């Protein structure tokens, strides 16, 4: 009998933490999430059921600390040579149970990448923010406030827009930044966020990349307001809402890397975003494999298990083939992130573009395969009871975020074909 561990992974790439991470998170998933997840959709606003599971994972198991340096209570992933492959395994195992929890957990690292990763560690900010995540047994959430009402994912479409459409402003007043603006949709907003990384401009309309600023704002700073969460097709464990910044004042040194570098290393954030997205897809799809094994092994057509019908088996083959390929691809990309010495910096246009390409491939395959899987199950395919419809709703969201497919296509074409005007 095969298990999800039979799907291919490049053995030589696995991180020293791989086995340990895999073990503790899978136990957590099987015990704390999978038995309850069918009731998560109705819990989208309150998180009565969801919050305790987060506390276990992030606070008690302490996985929200991993990026920070060891001497600050972290696990030193930020300066390791296996941040990509190690987080991939973490996210994959969480996503197997619930990809919304995986993204909420993963996004905790998203702004911290700007200050915890070599070669651009901002020691002062690490020291300042580490305690918030390391000295607690409760889940603590961070978020990247990027998207704005007018532009959708324009802000991620750096190549073209170059920050010119950013309307959230940061003005230096003495040694404080004064931030004003309105952001939408970030993961871990809707009231749960503790620390924001805010994408803003020091000079509205400017295409000068040194005006692009990434500034940290603790959620309890006066002038910060979070709206209530939006209702969505899925991903109940991930809250998204509006955030308003009105005359918000933070210390000057809360700017992550400084003029130019904020822009440069923000592209590393995009790379990690794509890596995460791929890992969420493979994790959820591994669970889909488990579900298909059970359904097609125990339901009969013509008196034989469904899986023994050649036509059904053909579809099953198409699905596991994709899962295996997505996983290989995800680990290859994680390795490219782990080894800039071999593949170039994580923020290079090449790494960003290839991440986009792999991400939209993984999402497209998953959405199509989930549609086929639901159809194989007939009416059970749309029952909450089988969980496939859950993964279908959740992974659709992964496909749509971060600018969606079209932005991925444009960045892929732009890099490979040197397009100038896309």
């Amino acid at each position, binding site marked *: 009998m095969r298990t999800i561990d039979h799907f291919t992974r490049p053995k030589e790439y696995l991180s020293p933490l791989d086995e340990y991470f895999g073990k503790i998170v899978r136990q957590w998933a099987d015990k704390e999430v999978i038995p309850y997840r069918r009731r998560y959709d109705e819990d989208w606003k309150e998180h009565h059921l969801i919050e305790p599971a987060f506390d276990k994972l992030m606070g008690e198991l302490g996985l929200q600390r991993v990026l920070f340096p060891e001497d600050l209570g972290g696990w030193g992933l930020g300066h390791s040579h296996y941040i990509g492959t190690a987080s991939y395994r973490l996210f994959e195992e969480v996503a197997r149970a619930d990809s919304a929890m995986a993204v909420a957990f993963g996004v905790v690292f998203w702004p911290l990448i700007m200050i915890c990763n070599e070669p651009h560690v901002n020691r002062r900010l690490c020291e300042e923010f580490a305690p918030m995540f390391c000295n607690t047994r409760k889940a603590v959430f961070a978020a990247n406030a990027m998207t704005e009402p007018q532009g959708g994912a324009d802000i991620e479409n750096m190549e073209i827009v170059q920050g010119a459409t950013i309307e959230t402003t940061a003005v230096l007043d003495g040694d404080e930044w004064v931030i004003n603006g309105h952001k939408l949709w970030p993961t871990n907003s809707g009231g749960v966020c503790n620390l924001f990384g805010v994408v803003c401009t020091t000079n509205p309309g400017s295409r000068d990349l040194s005006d692009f600023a990434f500034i940290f704002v603790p959620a309890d700073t006066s002038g910060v307001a979070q709206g209530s969460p939006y209702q969505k097709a899925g991903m109940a464990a991930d809250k998204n809402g509006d955030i308003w910044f009105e005359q918000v004042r933070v210390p000057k040194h809360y700017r992550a890397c400084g003029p130019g570098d904020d822009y440069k290393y923000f592209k590393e954030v995009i790379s990690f975003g794509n890596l995460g997205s791929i890992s969420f897809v493979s994790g959820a799809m591994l669970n889909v494999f488990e579900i298909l094994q059970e359904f097609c092994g125990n339901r009969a057509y013509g008196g034989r298990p469904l899986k023994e019908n050649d*036509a059904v088996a053909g579809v099953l083959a198409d699905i596991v083939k994709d899962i295996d390929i997505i996983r290989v691809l995800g680990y290859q990309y994680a390795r490219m992130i782990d080894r800039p010495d071999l593949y170039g910096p994580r923020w290079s246009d090449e790494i960003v573009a290839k991440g986009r390409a792999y991400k939209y491939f993984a999402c497209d395959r998953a959405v199509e395969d989930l549609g086929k899987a639901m159809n194989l199950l007939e009416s059970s395919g749309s029952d909450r009871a089988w969980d496939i419809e859950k993964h279908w709703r959740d992974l659709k969201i992964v496909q749509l975020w971060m600018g969606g497919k*079209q932005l991925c296509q444009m960045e892929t074409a732009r890099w490979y074909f040197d397009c100038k005007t896309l």
Partner: protein
Amino acid sequence: MSNLDLIPYPKDMVQESDVSLARTLQQWAEAEVLSKRLEYREDYEKLLKPAMRKLFIDVELQKMIWPENCGGIGLNTPEVARTLALSLEQIGRADTGIGYLFSVTFALCSSFAMETNLNEELCDRIAPLFCQTQEIALGSLVLPAFGRGEHSAEGPLFRGKVLPARARRDGDTWVVNGKSLRPLNSGADAQLFGVFCALEKEDEPGLILVPGDAPGLTRGERFLKTGLAASDNADIDLTEVRVPVENLVFRGENPLRQILSWLYLNSGAVTVGSLFATYEIMRDWAEMRVIKGKGSLFKENPLTASLMAEISHEILLSRLLLHQLAQMLSKPELYRQPGEERLYIPALSVVSHITQTAEKAINQTMELMGSAGYATEWNLERYWRDVKTMQVHLGNWELNKMELARYFFQCRNL
């Protein structure tokens, strides 16, 4: 202006009465559902029942198929196919689930209320449920299902699947038994079930009508599902349920095919209607959305325009196919009876194309809209969940294709 008139349909096939009914339903859709979405955003389900009541009772849709002498409208000739195509487009545009409930109800009743197979005794007895009431009346079907483990324990197979219930003859009644049956819809509140049963001492299975209030029929918990909120579905148990012998509507495969042919036409029309709604949502988005910073309108970008064109292209083709099928169903003298393979196969083929295309088309529209695609606020994601739910209820495509293979290649052992 919705611009739906940009999507052609075969005008020479429909009568003025069809067009005017469709216009009425379009008004219903806009007044009772589309315009109220915003106010009911937080609890969309609350608007469903009132809207359905308007449609089923006030617009008298639930009387449609019944003969006039039973208090119905008497639209029970094959020509009703064209009426259904145009009407259900509008209902599906408003809400896929409401359209689906009507589709199944009509298909069930078509097995004994159509002119071609009219069973007056049954009509007289059943019609009041639908025609002499101020309550919404729903019909539902219980069809063969996957077996569990070894089928030997589960009685005879029908086309590879297990018959959901068994019936034995006892004087002038049929006694029906079956555990945890999964109806296509409305297990929690349907007034009439058509249950496909194994008949004791007979080779062929048959469809038996079981009223929702029959003693021995118990309804399980309403369960959660992806879509079709209008359908309160639940498993049902039948324990020694007794119904008159006449409730055995038919025996064998062809009459079942006839029910399915009508169900396929109706579901196809509902899906095309949902695609209309998709097109309208996409238009709104494309008109107001700006990309690449200010200035460039969403619809003027060649990539997004290309995808929008692809989607509209598929909608156009689906509508043409839908009305072609309606035309075929409306003329049995030219295209055979809906129970015959020659008509049943095109019906299966067309509805499969439409529902699969719709899944893809709505998926793509969501891609165009980014987070607005999955935000409840923009309504699109509901059509996406509804259409997919309806599609899976039409059956596993791989197994449905075995029917096509038998037809096109005379396979014998599939």
